[in-house]
């Protein structure tokens, strides 16, 4: 693509990643969550791939790091849910809710301004699912583009 498109993609890409991480991190207070934020970040990756050619992007976005991110996301999601057994409760019990530790402030019923420290284990699961969706969607785009290149190398 031309120099204007490449420079604009260079400038906008960090802001897209930060906005996506904001949507993931505030999933328990505002509309959003893990899946929506992960899709936003994958859109930033797609912008960089469109602006530059595939041979150049393959050197920056490595496939092994994205696959590792996806695996860590899914294993983290299951691990956070399995930790409820250590507290003597059932699978998927919210053991951090109103406990005083990380993300443990209790929330009474009613309209309030929203505190980031609340939510139990929902922010942790939001991060895990955001990592998984980011890695998965970018990996699908890279694999589909690798079938068109002339060199025999998988991303």
């Amino acid at each position, binding site marked *: 693509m031309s120099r204007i498109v490449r420079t604009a993609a260079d400038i906008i890409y960090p802001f897209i990643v930060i906005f996506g991480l904001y949507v993931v991190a505030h999933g328990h*207070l*505002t509309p959003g969550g893990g*899946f929506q934020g992960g899709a936003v970040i994958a859109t930033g990756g797609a912008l960089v791939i469109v602006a530059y050619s595939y041979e150049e992007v393959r050197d920056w976005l490595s496939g092994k790091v994205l696959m590792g991110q996806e695996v860590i996301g899914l294993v983290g999601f299951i691990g956070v849910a399995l930790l409820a057994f250590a507290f003597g409760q059932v699978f998927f019990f919210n053991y951090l809710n109103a406990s005083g530790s990380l993300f443990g402030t209790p929330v009474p019923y*009613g*309209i309030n*301004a929203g505190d980031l420290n609340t939510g139990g284990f929902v922010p942790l699961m939001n991060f895990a699912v955001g990592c998984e969706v980011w890695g998965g969607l970018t990996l699908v785009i890279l694999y589909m583009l690798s079938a068109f290149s002339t060199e025999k190398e998988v991303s």
Partner: protein
Amino acid sequence: MLWNLPFITVVVLTFIGLVTVLMKRNLIKILLGINILESAVNLFLVSLGYRAGGVAPIFTLAPSDLMVLPTPQALTLTSIVIGVATSALVLSFAMVLHKKYGTVDINEIRRLQG
């Protein structure tokens, strides 16, 4: 009839999606018909949980206390993600078929066997 307009739209979209899946010959157009069917189902799920005069079910600085139902929105989120997974796999199959047969016409692919 005008007060039921979301449900009438669901029926029209289902009809268009089914006609596209059954009558078209190009594999990419069949995939678009599948996507239209999934959009119809998502619209039906979300419009089932609407309360007249309600706001989004979020308690952070909400303007009123009357809220729409949150469960259909959670089910629609799952449905959208599964639609993405289905579309990704069907597109990969279309690419492999084009590389092997040279065309994505389903009548031609069915005849070139052996």
